[in-house]
């Protein structure tokens, strides 16, 4: 599945999140393609992915997007990421 990680500028927190998501997905044997974006351009590209991950503070910027948007509080917690991925794994 295609996962888009969104942060304010697209170079910091989303990159850390991408690393964590890729690690967790690989542990779960999930096939994922993770990309990163800043909140401003995410609205345009979000619909090309299957799932959007972002922080609670930025979720409002993604309102109206057609794909599921999940928020993560601790970007460094593999368990929190895993719980979300489990909902979408099949």
């Amino acid at each position: 599945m295609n996962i888009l990680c969104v942060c304010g500028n697209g170079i910091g927190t989303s990159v850390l999140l991408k690393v964590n998501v890729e690690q967790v997905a690989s542990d779960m044997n999930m096939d994922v393609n993770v990309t990163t974006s800043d909140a401003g351009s995410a609205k345009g590209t979000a619909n090309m992915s299957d799932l959007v991950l972002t922080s609670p503070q930025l979720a409002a910027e993604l309102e109206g997007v057609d794909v599921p948007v999940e928020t993560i509080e601790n970007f460094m917690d593999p368990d929190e990421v895993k719980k979300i991925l489990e909902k979408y794994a099949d």
Partner: protein
Amino acid sequence: MATDFEQFLPDSAFLIDAEAQDWRDAIRLAGKGLVDSGFTTNAYTDDMIATVEAMGPYIVIAPGLALAHSRPSAAVLHTGLSWVRLSKAVPFGNEANDPVSLVIGLAGRDENEHLQVMSAIARALSNPQASEELRHAATPEAIRAILQR
């Protein structure tokens, strides 16, 4: 990899047990580490503060940890990071993850140049033991050594 770390996270980028009055002050310290290492101009420090003012404290990405940064601009001279460990934790207004005791400053020329170092940081911080050791490491060498495992 070792050269990468000394290039992106040199001794001059560390402020260990520094004191901050509030979150703006904490970000200013992260900015100082970046400026002192030749990564950014002072304008980038203001940009990092403005990012939080505009978008909220989303940069507090894990309990006690803020990743201070802004977007690539003319104020970014080279890609690099700074590492600020506060002597006393300060609140950033992020309910889930306050208060913050470690501020990592990030200046990126694009989203790729710092990927290797960021991957190492993500790996270390998502490992409870390495993360705990990072909080107590006393020198830049010790911190770089933990990140490079």
